[in-house]
């Protein structure tokens, strides 16, 4: 019926219309604070991060090692039975050079988010984190990286206990 209709509803406003008070508007904010129970598997993952370790979980049934750990294997629906310490090294699966923050502020030096496949986990099993100590132009998929940890005393049991991952140069551990 779009052929038959000439005037579609919907009134477009500009920022200026609102600033000038041409139409009424009001602002509000929701205070929404949460304390999420970390539970068995993620609780353990955070505790391990505090110790400077990335923890995975292994499914004895389908023999996958996943990260972060979870209580049930989503592929065979068997309870995960073991925690497995993983390396704090891995491979860049993919990355971006991001010039805006989460609240859309422009930044000059890009943040470099990446999915990092963690050594010791099954292929393609990674975590989201950031890269650092690298020229953005030098980042490549397939690059080997290693976690840079916060000093022990400053760790909280959080994903941010890893500051970022840095490239592993030839011959370096």
């Amino acid at each position, binding site marked *: 019926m779009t052929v038959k209709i000439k005037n579609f*509803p*919907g009134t477009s406003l500009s920022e200026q219309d609102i600033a000038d008070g041409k139409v009424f508007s009001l602002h509000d904010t929701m205070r929404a604070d949460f304390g999420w129970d970390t539970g068995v598997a993620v609780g353990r993952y955070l505790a391990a991060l505090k110790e400077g370790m990335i923890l995975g979980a292994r499914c004895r049934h389908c023999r996958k090692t996943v990260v972060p750990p979870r209580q049930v294997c989503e592929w065979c629906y068997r309870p995960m039975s073991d925690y497995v310490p993983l390396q704090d090294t891995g491979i860049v699966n993919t990355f971006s050079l991001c010039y805006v923050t989460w609240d859309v502020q422009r930044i000059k030096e890009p943040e470099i988010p990446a999915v990092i496949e963690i050594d010791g986990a099954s292929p393609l099993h990674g975590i989201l984190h950031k890269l650092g100590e690298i020229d953005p132009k030098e980042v490549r998929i397939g690059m080997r990286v290693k976690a840079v940890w916060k000093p022990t005393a400053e760790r909280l049991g959080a994903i941010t206990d890893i500051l970022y991952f840095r490239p592993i140069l030839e011959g370096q551990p």
Partner: protein
Amino acid sequence: MSKRKVAVVGAGMTRFVRRAQETGKELSWQAVRMALESCEMTMDDIEAVCLGTAPDAFDGVHMKGEYLSDGAGAWRKPYMRSYVGGGTGVFVPIQAWYHIASGLFDVCLVVAEEKMSSYYPHAQAAFLTIFDHTTERPLKPNLLWIFALEMNRYMHTYGISKADIAQVAVKNKRNAADHPCALLGDKNITVEDVLNSEVLAWPVNRLDVSPVTDGAVALVLAAEHVAKRITDKPVWIEGVGWSLDTAHWTNRDLAYPRYVEYAARMAYEMAGIKEPRKEIHIVEPYDPFDYKELHHLEGLLLADRGQAPQLVADGVTSRNGDMPVCPSGGLLGVGNPIAAAGLMKIAELFWQLRGEAGARQVPGHPKRGLAQAWGDLMQVGTVVIMGR
């Protein structure tokens, strides 16, 4: 067991705008009223209402399905809101399909609304909270990250260039110039314009992305016996499919949307489609980012893996090509009021298959179309196949 046939018999939509004066209720009502008028029905004919709308954070109302119900025409009626993130717009007609196919109802209203401008200062900030609250959110991720990460992996896996991908944005924004409701139609845009636009999160530039938008779309769905009474041009829902992949998106192959494939296979089977590339004549895949259209064509099995860019380059996906893709102008051109954008694709198929799409009309009297949306953490595929 005989299954009930369900048809789309009416459609309406508002203009897609950056900032609407109307409240979300009013936008919904405008779309609903148009949809009812298009098939000469009234609220007395409507037995149930299905609403689709994405995160509450956008409209800034908790349980916003409840808030929007009067505008959606739900007064004292059975009313439910379904929700699968960005996939919602194509899911909500599926929801109405199962309402009617269940035998409980004969006529349902389908409404999708989004007023993203209510999130202030910028709607993108609402996306921080789609990430896992404990293991990811402390890194302060934004929505662009996840798209950029997926796009980069897709490009890397198949050796696709940014210029290959930018063709999609160009095609869709040009198509949208013919859509009376479009926010970003542009007849003269070029690949260079896209490549030269501001880099947001490499490899994503500003013009690779669909805009924050307000808008609403509504449809009327009816069971076979009612549909045939209302119109001599019902458009049948021949197949539906949906699939939700694991939440652990960093444990998956980001180069290929297998959840779209699962959803598509379900819909093809229901529609009795054996060779989708021959049997689907128009495609409206989800295109919030330009690479997504390509990604989804592959997931829908309408292109070989990594080969979708070639289809665009060869003109196959142009409006007058062999398999027109996003003749509406898509999200990149018409705009992206999340759930409403998905339902806009269904409305487009309705108009196209009835030959009522005006300047956007695909030649050759297409008989069957497919619309698809995607959502969540690179995770959900929703597919509807429609035919006349």
